[in-house]
């Protein structure tokens, strides 16, 4: 039961959920939640390939760097969201359209 196929399937479902959340939501924080799901799917794929195909630990290193990058992205993204809320008092994605007109 624990093989490469099931891990790829779980990662696939996580990725599709992330894509769906990222496009369907109009809330900036909800979009960040979708990005976290997508990054987790990628990290899970790296770990699974490291176990079932490669046999060494390079995939684990890549997963660690993905976790680091996700943490940095969340910190900067939420800083931008809070600053945007201070300026516009809204976190609707359609209100961040100053560059469009």
């Amino acid at each position: 039961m624990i093989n490469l196929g099931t891990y790829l399937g779980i990662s696939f479902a996580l990725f599709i959920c992330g894509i769906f959340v990222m496009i369907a939501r109009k809330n900036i924080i909800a979009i960040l939640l979708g990005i976290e799901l997508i990054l987790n799917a990628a990290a899970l794929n790296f770990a699974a390939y490291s176990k079932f195909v490669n046999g060494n630990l390079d995939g684990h290193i890549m997963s660690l760097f993905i976790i680091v990058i996700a943490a940095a992205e969340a910190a900067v993204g939420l800083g931008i969201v809070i600053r945007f809320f201070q300026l516009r008092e809204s976190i609707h994605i359609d209100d961040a359209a100053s560059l469009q007109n």
Partner: protein
Amino acid sequence: MFTNTLFLLSAAITLGGAFAVVYTQNLMHACIFLLASLFGVAGLYACIGADFLAAAQLVVYAGGVIILMLFAIMLTGGASNSINRYGLVKIAAMGNTKTFFAAGFTAIVTSLVLLKIIANVLKNQPNKVLAANEATVEKLGTLLATDHILAFEISSVLLLGALIGAAVISRPRKEKHD
């Protein structure tokens, strides 16, 4: 036996959490469901012997990212009147029918492409004998300090930059920027 139970439980939590993030209309609930999903991913890491990754996932996500997101939600959502002085709705919508149709279309197209790729991968799946799970912490430390030392240092600089950048961006300024 124990590993199989843990795997089934973790997979159920992961997929259920992810689907609940898609389904729910409450942002706070979505954040909590995402936390459940990340716990499940940590269990999946533990099933394939990635003990350090499971611990890092729990510490960084449950202790850091989700708490940060909850703080951001609470700082940007709660107000008595829901219309601000620009006439915009403060508590943003979680999507409408149009965006859900667009997201469904995109998800279908993406899943077709990914299934095409995964089918090829699974067709010639390697039949190698799997090594038993053993502790990875010491080997990971050696690898990080020898082979991947450059990426390790670069990621430390990235974290420092992200820290300073987040502080600078979210700092309240004296002058108006409207």
